[in-house]
């Protein structure tokens, strides 16, 4: 879809960015020491730190990715909300207080507290960098996604803009300013998401399609002699039926062309239900085609908003409401779900079809779906395996949920926030505040996602834009504020990740592994240089991964974090037999096995390499269920084999 930049949105966006940068610069003026730059002198109040946890954690993936997945597939996106929040239980009950007691600047400090080993610092420093980079990808993708409708720039410009702004923030400031930016962002995100949810409930449900276009559904027709039957139908009298492109094979589509405008309408042939059993109906679809000469066509015309051009229409509406419910009636927080449960919803699917002459077409088609099917797990392709009888198909889901549960307490940018408060009690209290704010937000994601699904404002090509477009369907100001908050969300999370990476480079790799003596001032300068390099890499990766759902990408970051870091962290707390060699090997094996698994998975083959998914070398895409236990096993075996003499 082409977006028209809104002046209100642009103005609000500029104000948010200026305030964020101004605050960073103001608070960063006094940050000269490394203790201040990396850990805010340990003086952040616990409540501020707790909301800043929410600011750090509620990233672009949480807001854009989860809402987008719910808007297009229903309940499955909410599984991420549940998994992300459950991970905080590990952080609070197991990790928070010991981590605060053991560490000073980085996650490696805590793991290395007992051993003082260069090897541990090296392994954990590298794993911190790997996890941070993986987590940075979806944030940068989300940034590009937001900039597109806000300012009308292409995706890559958005990624470069965010990268540059964040690098400026991190270089000019440090942990104090990042914390207060996170606090502001976290508060605003939760508050305005609550407002948006209330407005969704007040607006109620509507069965009307978007004002821009009403999609047709015609028939039933007999399956045999379909072409003849269509030629006689009034909808096709003024148009010509086109032969299907050779490359489309037996795909169930019919195309008609309006000779006066040149617009091509694609119809999906669907079996007609009820009394018309055995016959077919035609559902109007939309197509976007990349032609061999590089043009982008929408429904046969050049994509654009000028005369003679065409653009994709916004979608998402209810086909029918349960009896007794009137369109536009306000709904309560409980009747919101019970009403949807009994409704029929028009979801949108897509299919890619290639033809040598016409190019690569994506057909977006209507899928009439019962509400009860939308509100159950297993609609998204990644989760469809739970309805399969094959055990291997269920493993992808189990693996993802395990990674989400174990990943939170292993994320470097979350863990370093425990060093910004003064003691263990403050670490605990700030985690409790964080769980409250994050949990409340995740409950709202289900309302926002389902609200977007039925808002008539969805962009079929971009599920990550669902939440901002939902806001736009309610109010232009709300769209401006929500988009600006989402943008600062990206800024905040990215700055936290870059700071964690810079800390790993400066403290773990340069100071401890390479044993280069640096003055305090030099450490801060090196950290700033490292921030610029990490930021540049993040920009490149954000452009490369443009088309992937940001929430799914975060699932991978969680898998790598949980596989590399959690086994050592947990075992150090509960087993005295852990050895230095055990920690190093577990971190290396956990990190390389999870990264390797991801690179060889079907999702990476399909979405990154552009190869057939069937050629993937791993049986399912999410590695956690194999690589997290592998990390634990490696640590135990190597520790047992390397026990100091006299203790055996």
């Amino acid at each position: 879809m082409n977006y028209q930049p809104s002046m209100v949105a642009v103005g609000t966006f500029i104000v948010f960015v200026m305030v964020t940068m101004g605050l960073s610069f103001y608070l960063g003026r006094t940050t000269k020491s490394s203790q201040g730059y990396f850990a805010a002198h340990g003086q952040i109040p616990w409540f501020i730190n707790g909301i800043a946890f929410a600011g750090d954690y509620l990233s672009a993936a949480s807001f854009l990715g989860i809402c987008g997945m719910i808007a297009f597939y229903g309940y499955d996106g909410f599984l991420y909300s549940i998994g992300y929040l459950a991970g905080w239980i590990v952080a609070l009950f197991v990790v928070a207080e010991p981590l605060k007691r053991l560490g000073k600047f980085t996650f490696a400090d805590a793991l290395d507290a007992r051993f003082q080993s260069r090897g541990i610092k090296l392994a954990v420093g590298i794993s911190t960098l790997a996890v941070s980079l993986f987590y940075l990808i979806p944030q940068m993708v989300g940034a590009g996604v937001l900039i597109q409708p806000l300012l009308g720039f292409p995706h890559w410009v958005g990624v470069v803009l965010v990268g540059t702004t964040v690098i400026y923030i991190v270089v000019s400031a440090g942990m104090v300013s990042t914390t207060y930016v996170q606090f502001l962002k976290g508060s605003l995100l939760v508050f305005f998401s609550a407002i948006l949810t209330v407005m969704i409930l007040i607006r109620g449900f509507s069965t009307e399609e978007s004002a821009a276009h009403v999609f047709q559904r015609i028939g039933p027709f007999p399956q045999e002699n379909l072409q003849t039957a269509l030629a006689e139908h009034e909808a096709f009298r003024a148009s010509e039926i086109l032969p299907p492109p050779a490359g489309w094979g037996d795909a169930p589509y019919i195309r008609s062309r309006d000779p006066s405008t040149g617009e091509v309408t694609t119809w999906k042939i669907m079996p007609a239900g009820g009394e018309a059993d055995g016959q077919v109906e035609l559902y109007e679809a939309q197509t976007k085609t990349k032609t061999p000469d590089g043009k982008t066509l929408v429904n046969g015309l050049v994509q654009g908003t000028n005369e003679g051009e065409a653009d994709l229409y916004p979608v998402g509406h209810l086909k029918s409401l349960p009896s007794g419910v009137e369109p536009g009636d306000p709904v309560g927080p409980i009747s919101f779900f019970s009403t949807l449960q009994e409704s029929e919803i028009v979801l949108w699917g897509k299919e890619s079809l290639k033809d040598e002459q016409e190019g690569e077409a994506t057909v977006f088609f209507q899928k009439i779906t019962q509400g009860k099917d939308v509100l159950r797990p297993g609609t998204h392709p990644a989760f469809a395996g739970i309805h399969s009888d094959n055990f291997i198909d269920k493993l992808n889901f189990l693996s993802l949920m395990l990674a989400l549960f174990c990943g939170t307490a292993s994320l470097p940018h979350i863990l370093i926030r425990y060093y910004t408060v003064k003691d263990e009690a403050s670490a605990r209290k700030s985690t409790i505040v964080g769980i409250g704010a994050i949990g409340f937000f995740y409950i709202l994601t289900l309302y926002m996602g389902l609200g977007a699904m039925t808002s008539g404002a969805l962009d079929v090509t971009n599920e990550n834009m669902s939440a901002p477009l939902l806001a736009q369907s309610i109010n232009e100001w709300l769209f401006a504020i929500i988009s600006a908050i989402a943008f600062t969300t990206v800024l905040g999370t990215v700055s936290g990740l870059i700071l964690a990476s810079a800390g790993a480079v400066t403290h773990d790799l340069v100071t401890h592994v390479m044993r280069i003596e640096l003055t305090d001032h030099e450490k801060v300068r090196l950290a700033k240089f490292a921030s610029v390099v990490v930021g540049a890499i993040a920009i490149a990766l954000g452009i490369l991964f443009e088309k992937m759902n940001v929430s799914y990408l975060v699932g991978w970051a969680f898998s790598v974090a949980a596989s590399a870091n959690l086994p050592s962290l947990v075992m150090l707390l509960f087993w005295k037999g852990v050895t230095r060699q055990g920690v190093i090997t577990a971190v290396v094996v956990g990190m390389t096995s999870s990264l390797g698994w991801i690179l060889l998975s079907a999702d990476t083959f399909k979405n990154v390499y552009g190869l057939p998914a069937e050629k993937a070398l791993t049986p399912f895409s999410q590695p956690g269920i194999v690589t997290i236990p592998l990390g634990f096993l490696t640590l135990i075996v190597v520790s047992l084999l390397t026990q100091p003499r006299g203790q055996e």
Partner: protein
Amino acid sequence: MQPRNARIGIVMFVIYTAFFAGFVFLNAFYPKLMEITPLGGINLAILYGMALILAAFVMALVYGYLCRTDETQSSRETHS
């Protein structure tokens, strides 16, 4: 971390993990069960999911309260 806090933390962690594992297990192996609507016309998938989020917050508050009590007692013993 005081040993008592650690013990409370582990007990609560095990309880919550069992609750979470039950959710994941039902979704993976009995997905049809998640479609039943036991309360207010809302299906089990939503009810259980919401309960997991609320339980996390309630248990966090209880943990905070129990640890606070412990700290107050320790502080009194130190002063006496």
